[in-house]
């Protein structure tokens, strides 16, 4: 099955270049030049992944990302020329799974990131995991709390599942980047920090005093003991 990528980028030439290269690489790509069109294209094209530029007129990429997240958990990779930390963090907090700076080291790097987001998870060994008040339905890709479904993005789900599968293990941020994001080289560990925060805000009773995803100071994160 051909996978579909929506490219949201206001610079027409870059947009076309990206679409061309994606198509050469075997994806089905659709480009869209602004935020409003992007939402329309998202609904009609129904992509498997979104490449999203942050500086978009008139609605910013961050706004578009929020709108996408409101209706879908589809992986979003941000493209950004801004290297200021606040912009990266703002994008991740809006729900983006990953980001890549312009100019990226090469198209191959971008492709590797895309593939990491689209790669199907290996068939799990167990069907259900329990961590505190949460029940993780691994096959159904669902998390329930007291029978009520908690809406998580696929990435957040993977993050929680990874922690829950090895309840005693402390994961370093680098380990999580490798396991959850599929990075095999050094990358920004803030990705992990921001997504752990987002995950906590969805599953914890008190996100400032987390019980399910616990910070191990100076090391990383682990699943809480119940």
């Amino acid at each position, binding site marked *: 099955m051909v996978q579909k990528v929506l490219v949201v980028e206001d610079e027409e030439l*870059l947009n076309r*270049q990206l679409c061309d290269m994606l198509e050469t690489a075997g994806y089905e790509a659709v480009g869209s030049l602004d935020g409003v069109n992007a939402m329309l294209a998202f609904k009609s094209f129904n992509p498997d992944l979104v490449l999203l530029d942050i500086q978009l007129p008139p609605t910013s990429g961050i706004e578009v990302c929020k709108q996408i997240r409101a209706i879908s958990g589809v992986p979003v990779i941000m493209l950004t*020329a801004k290297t200021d930390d606040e912009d990266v963090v703002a994008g991740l907090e809006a729900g983006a799974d990953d980001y890549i700076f*312009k100019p990226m080291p090469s198209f191959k790097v971008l492709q590797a990131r895309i593939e990491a987001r689209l790669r199907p998870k290996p068939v799990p060994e167990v069907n259900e995991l329990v961590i505190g008040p949460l029940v993780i339905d691994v096959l159904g890709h669902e998390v329930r709390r007291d029978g009520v479904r908690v809406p998580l993005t696929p990435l957040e789900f993977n993050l929680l599942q990874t922690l829950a599968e090895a309840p005693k293990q402390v994961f370093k941020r680098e380990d999580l980047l490798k396991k959850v994001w599929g990075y095999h080289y050094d990358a920004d560990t803030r990705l992990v920090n921001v997504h752990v925060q987002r995950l906590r805000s969805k599953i914890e009773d008190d996100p400032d005093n987390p019980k399910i995803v616990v910070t191990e100071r*100076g090391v990383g994160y682990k699943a809480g003991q119940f």
Partner: protein
Amino acid sequence: MLAGIFSAVIGAFRRSIQLRYVALTVAFSAVALVAVGGFLSYSIGNGLFHTRVEQILQESKRATLDVQNTFNSSGATDVVSLQVLVNAVVPNLEQNVASGSRRVALLRTPNQATDQFLQSPISSTLVDSDIPIAMRAKVAKTENRLVYRTVTLNVSGNMEPSVIVGSKITIPIAGQYELYLVYDISDAQATLDFMQSTLAFGGLIMILLLGIVAYFVTGRIVGPVARAAQVAEELALGALDKRLPERGQDIVATLARSFNQMAQSLETQIGELSKLSKMQQRFVSDVSHELRTPLTTIKLAAEMLEARSGELDEKAQRSLDTLISQVARFESLLSDLLEISRYDAGAVVAELEPNDLNTVVKLAAAGLEPLAESLGCALDVRVPKGEVIADLDRRRIERVLRNLISNAIEHGSGKPIVIEVGQSKSAVAVTITDFGVGMSRNQMDRVFDRFWRADPARKRTTGGTGLGLAISLEDTHLHHGWLQVTSELGQGTTFRVTLPRKNGGIFTESPLPLGETLSQRKIV
């Protein structure tokens, strides 16, 4: 305790002009008032006393005359009638007095040829010993004049200031007698005391009032000055919009006006400067951002072409290589510029975490292995056993090391490069030594300058911009560390990075040497 209060008072004096002037005013006026008051009370007291004594002497003179006349004119010759006369003297004189009370004694002058046969009458509250012996001797010797003394007498427990007036009386037959009239002058003393205490009280009130007046007057003068001082201080601390109130036409208003003018021009100039520098920083950052998108397009397009390079002829292939390498160079220049502009804008925060320096060094060296290999030089990495943990912003330190190692490779003339890690309790260090072209003293001084390169025409394989060391220096300073260099022309160069082990830690010495001559450190 006492010393503490003392030094606190001294301190308050040092700090407050107003307090000093109030104290000075009070001290001077106190001295003046004590002088004036003392003089007044002395002369008033004197006046009072003299009038009283004058009056007493008048009365005494009359009384003495009366008594002497009584005896002279009586003609009594027998003891009994004389005694009657003598006895009448005391009650007579006690009663017939113009003001106050008077006590009386009629005493026989001792050591006379004849014997005493008359009794000496004396007022009931008076005793012989109240009359000083010296006075009695004086009276005995004095003719036709009154002798007086001021004394304090004990009258049934009360000390009464009194004046004793003595004179000689000759009683026919009976011989020489002395008449003593004792006047109580405590009423005059009381008047004097009252006057003195009124004076003292008035003086105190006066001093207090003067103090208060001095406080307000100095306050009027010191107040504006103090306000100006405070505003100047706030201004110096960066509150550039602070101003003084301008009221009236006097010297204080002039001070305020010129102060405000000064502050205004200061504010305008500083505002202008910071606006300019902000604009410049924004400009650099905007330019590099704006350039990124087209750069990405060019880069992707070149990559697409590269994938099809089999279809190109040799010349087109070379053009493509040039395109790719120059795009890469352009990109690194852009990111260096952006990084520098971030530092200039003060927008850089270190993310310090415990990291193993050995790992960071090995990673940086491994990343440059291909470049080293292409220039035929070996990288000799020497790290201590185990881990060298320090608080590092790993990304930045790796960048510093990458730049230093790539510089060494570029300028190392293909000879081996030694990379050494050292540690002490308080610091960690890395030295990167090459045995290549080296630098002169002058070149060494400029090596950390932006865009500076020893020889701009020198062949560059990595497309340097001359920003690398400037950024490395900022990165080490961000860690509160050192970046130092020593070099000898034609011999080689050593760069040394020294960082505190703990964030905010202090070190005075680097764990690795730098000054050693390079020839001594030749590798085997």
